[in-house]
């Protein structure tokens, strides 16, 4: 008796009996997971394909240099010591411009997020100025801040300023008001509420804004360095382009790409550290 019952249940589990059928599964999905090693494999196989294409003559060296040639150009750059000069000049501009732009953006964004008058003043200004390509303003910046470092840093500063402002006040707008009310109910000072409740709540939005502003900064860095810079990755790429030295051009572009990856990785680290409470 017992055994037949078990068999009967097993039959139901395996294939539905008679006029029934199992309910089809329709859930799952919509949750991308972290998969390791895929990204390096994609990068490597693209490089290998490219190299094979160049070696076999399928890709003409006039159209596109082989990766090995670009690597050679990079090697020259390292050996001559110029890489350090270009990179340090670029990084210096990037760090100063991005830091100042972000700090200013955080300040203005917080003011817009918290107070009525600054919101009425700055929010429309930001909306009007953000869409202007900063590259178009570069000649003006050169007149205002000089052909030297000033105009380059100003370009990056403005480029990172606006996305930060928008991300910051958007983040502050989304702060849970019940948490602010809680702060007030415990008599926390206004400064303490901003420091301990408002800014930490807005941090996820600020960090994702930083991702965008960092990329914009790198784009603007190169654009700015293409005018009147002796050293810098942008100047190197521009010179290579003028000489039709495609191997150097690709080497320079690769450096920019690595710079972008590094910045993105740094922000991911910051997110993992500062937003670990979200997990």
């Amino acid at each position, binding site marked *: 008796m017992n055994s037949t019952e078990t068999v009967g249940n097993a039959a139901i589990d395996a294939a539905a009996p008679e006029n029934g059928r199992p309910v089809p599964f329709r859930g799952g999905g919509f949750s991308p997971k972290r998969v390791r090693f895929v990204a390096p494999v994609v990068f490597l196989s693209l490089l290998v394909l490219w190299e094979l294409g160049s070696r076999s003559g399928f890709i003409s060296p006039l159209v596109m240099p082989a990766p090995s040639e670009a690597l050679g150009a990079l090697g020259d750059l390292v050996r001559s010591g110029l890489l350090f000069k270009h990179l340090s000049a670029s990084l210096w501009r990037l760090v100063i411009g991005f830091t100042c732009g972000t700090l200013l953006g955080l300040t203005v964004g917080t003011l817009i997020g918290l107070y009525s008058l600054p919101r009425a003043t700055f929010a429309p200004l930001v909306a009007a100025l953000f869409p202007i390509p900063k590259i178009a303003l570069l000649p003006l910046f050169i007149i205002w801040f000089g052909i030297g470092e000033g105009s380059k840093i100003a370009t990056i500063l403005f480029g990172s300023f606006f996305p930060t402002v928008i991300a910051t006040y958007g983040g502050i707008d989304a702060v849970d008001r019940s948490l602010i009310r*809680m*702060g*007030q*109910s*415990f008599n*926390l000072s206004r400064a*303490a509420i901003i420091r301990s409740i408002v800014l*930490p709540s807005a941090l996820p939005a600020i960090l994702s804004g930083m991702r965008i502003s960092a990329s914009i900064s790198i784009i603007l860095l190169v654009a700015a360095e293409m005018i009147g810079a002796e050293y810098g990755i942008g100047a190197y790429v521009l010179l290579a382009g003028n000489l039709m030295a495609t191997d150097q051009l690709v080497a320079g572009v690769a450096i920019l790409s690595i710079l972008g990856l590094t910045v993105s990785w740094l922000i991911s680290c910051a997110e993992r550290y500062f937003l670990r409470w979200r997990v």
Partner: protein
Amino acid sequence: MDLKIRDLTHRYAKLEVLRKINLTVESGKIVCIVGPSGCGKSTLLRLVGGLEQPTEGQVIQMGEPPEGSLNPLTYIFQDFALLPWRTVFGNIALVLEGHGLGKAEITKRIEDVLARTRLSEFANVFPKQLSGGMKQRVAIARALVVNPAVLLMDEPLSALDSQTRELLMDDLVSLWERERFTACYITHNLNEAVRLGHEVVILSRRPGEIRETVSIDIPLGERTAENPELMKTQNLLWNMMREEALTADRQLTET
């Protein structure tokens, strides 16, 4: 310290939510305020603690808060209002910052309150890892750490399931027996009101007016769920409220 609410009337634009509320919260007593949904219970509590300004009338503190009270009127919220990025310890530390207490003193006070609420082992846990009941226990610990004179509790158990609510009610009763705190307790749950209230105030539908005040003399510790006396009181309250609740249910929320 007693709290005296005098002739409190409140309006949002033209909508009158509260009308001529007169009420005293005596030291060492729990006053429960019940009423149909939308009758202005939560508004009343926000007015009492100074989170909102009444249109007319006053809330007066009678006498001095106890010595060392960092925040005489302290809220406990329905949605807990814990900072998700701070641990239990950090959430409690938040309300001690800015009072000029040393680091050692803050740690000592937090450890003390965690021990009193039996939360010591959860000090370094984030709110997300806690159940609703534990989150509210943390919020209660956070409220106690500032030595409040009056606890203002806004439906503190309404976000919890019924089993957890029972457990927390027991916790609150034993806490009251140990500490004799003063509280103004808002709820829509009559069972909570008769279990915890020394006095139950029934508000009418909007605009909220005091319809009735019922004193319950049974000591809190003896108020078990099966106590027939208590059941009777709860039924009495329900009969008083029924009509109000029925009409309130058909009221438009905003005009």
